[in-house]
């Protein structure tokens, strides 16, 4: 619960304080209480003598006006779980002495008693006591919810002058409101007076409380930013754990197999790069991404790096899918029978797509070509033929190159056509 949290925070900030008075949190102790521990708690918190406070409280309850205050504090003060985290006041030096307590307490009693008896005597007087009561409750509530550091800041900001001016203005405003309330006449003008009075009181309280409100929103904003940052960090950590750390562990275990290590490293690099520089556009369903995917599949399957270079792009289409299939076969051939480096170049032009698969193997003698390879080549060429394309195999000085050409009808999208019309 909120109150509990506050106790914990309060305790932490108490112990963090080095200079000044150490003030235990405003809470009802479980030991040494007479009724509900309100007096004991207030006494500890403010450092006022407990016995005197109890006397004043008892009198105020006899006068009736103390009753709601006591009930309110009972309801709002959290119960402290254990012994106070910090030592109670050093009675000789800090805190409020008995004489000062009575000096403040007796006028309060008198005024309160008069107010209550007045309120009982005439309902009209309620318009005076009610705002006073509300302001009092509000102040106590705000005070009890403030952290120690905030309280100190509220009372004495870094700029002392500003604080003093603010306090003076606030008090003057509040007093003016009270005077207006007190000097209210009757009849029609009274309503206006009361409204003005209440407004002035609110303004005064607002000026008094402005720094606290600003700080409150600041804290809220900071907390929000931190939470977002924490979530992001957790996401990144989770991703790294699932991917990079796993791969690193695998690499350590297979350190004696350079090829496996290289393969793992490359696959991880590709995956991480994808994650880091992920493009906004959907990656599936374009020719370029399909070719890249085919190449990385082959790479993973056979453990030989494949360099892919792509220029241009377009939606894949049926013919494009056939091209990717043929390319995949050609690549599988290259990594199985050729020698690295194996490279793929895909060029998507306006009317056709061309793909080149190149390896650096020793070349081959057509007579030595094994049956399965011929079959695969048949499937490459056959597939390209069926979709109106063509496939050629060239023997270079250093390796083999397969060239796949596929005419692609009606290029790309409507937008591109429009752009072409304009130019």
């Amino acid at each position, binding site marked *: 619960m909120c109150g509990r949290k506050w106790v914990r925070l309060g305790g932490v900030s108490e112990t963090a304080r080095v200079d000044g008075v150490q003030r235990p949190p405003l809470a009802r102790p479980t030991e040494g209480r007479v009724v509900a521990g309100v007096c004991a708690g207030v006494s500890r918190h403010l450092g006022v003598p407990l016995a005197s406070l109890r006397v004043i409280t008892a009198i105020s309850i006899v006068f009736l006006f103390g009753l709601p205050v006591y009930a309110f504090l009972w309801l709002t003060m959290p119960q402290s779980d254990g012994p106070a985290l910090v030592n109670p006041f050093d009675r000789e030096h800090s805190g409020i002495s008995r004489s000062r307590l009575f000096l403040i307490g007796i006028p309060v009693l008198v005024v309160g008693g008069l107010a209550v008896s007045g309120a009982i005597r005439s309902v009209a007087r309620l318009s005076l006591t009610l705002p006073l009561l509300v302001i009092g409750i509000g102040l106590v509530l705000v005070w009890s919810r403030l952290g120690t550091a905030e309280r100190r800041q509220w009372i004495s900001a870094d700029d002392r002058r500003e604080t003093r001016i603010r306090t003076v203005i606030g008090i003057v405003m509040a007093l003016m409101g009270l005077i207006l309330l007190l000097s209210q006449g009757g009849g029609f003008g009274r309503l206006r007076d009361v409204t003005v009075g209440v407004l002035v009181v609110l303004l005064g309280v607002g000026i008094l409380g402005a720094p606290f409100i600003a700080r409150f929103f600041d804290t809220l904003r900071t907390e929000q930013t931190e939470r977002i940052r924490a979530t992001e960090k957790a996401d990144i950590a989770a991703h790294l754990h699932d991917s990079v750390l796993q791969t690193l562990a695998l690499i350590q275990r297979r350190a004696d197999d350079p090829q496996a290590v290289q393969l793992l490293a490359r696959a991880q690099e590709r995956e991480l790069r994808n994650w880091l520089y992920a493009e906004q556009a959907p990656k599936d369903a374009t020719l370029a991404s399909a070719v890249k995917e085919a190449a990385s599949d082959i790479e993973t399957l056979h453990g030989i790096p494949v360099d892919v270079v792509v220029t241009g792009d377009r939606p894949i289409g049926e013919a494009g899918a056939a091209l990717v299939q043929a390319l995949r076969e050609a690549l599988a051939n290259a990594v199985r029978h050729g020698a690295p480096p194996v490279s793929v170049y895909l060029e998507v032009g306006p009317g056709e797509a061309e793909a080149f698969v190149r390896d650096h193997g020793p070349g081959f003698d057509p007579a030595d070509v094994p049956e399965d390879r011929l079959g695969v080549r048949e499937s490459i060429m056959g597939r390209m033929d069926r979709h109106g394309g063509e496939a050629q195999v060239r023997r270079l000085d250093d390796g083999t*190159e397969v060239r796949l050409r596929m005419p692609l009808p009606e290029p790309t999208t409507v937008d591109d056509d429009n752009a072409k019309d304009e130019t």
Partner: protein
Amino acid sequence: MTARVVLVDDHRMFRSGVKAELDDAVTVVGEAPDVDAAISVIRQTRPDVVLLDVHLPGGNGNGGSDVVTGCAGLQTEAGDPVRFLALSVSDAAEDVIAVIRAGARGYVTKTISPTDLISAIDRVQDGDAVFSPRLAGFVLDAFGATAGEIAEVDEELDRLSAREREVMRLIARGYQYKEVAKELFISVKTVETHVSSVLRKLQLSSRHELTSWAMQRRLL
């Protein structure tokens, strides 16, 4: 004479790895992990070639481009300009293009084999351009060559000529310069001329794709 090389990369492991691979072929005269250290080391040692990572901490936040601009006009003792070769894992076209536009003579990926890297360093030292297949792909895309845009005259900065396009396509297919030369029945020297001309266009062109990349990296 072996090339004097400075290695700039923010990963110490990578630097030592490259150093071990290159040890016999080149003389590594300096290393630097960030932009500011790189600029001072390069100014001090005045190497033939700087192997430059695209992504580096420090400077104005533009990574390798800042190093190239920070060392502009620097010459070796022989009087040649200090040349830069971008060496990166970056797949992002704009990062690579930005370093090239800042003045680097080429771009190769970190997966390059040691022999290829050594020949690339030699080529850059001689003042030629080095295009990896990936960079050639970027170039073809950026100049709209894939879509069939071809320069009417070779001097046009915003488009590739037909011959340059052919050279770029072959490089993208993984051909070495000598293989390109053989394929197109031209000399290796001519291939190098074409590649250098593409590099010049890449650095000088105001083609809007290139410009927007550069704008993003606050180069113009």
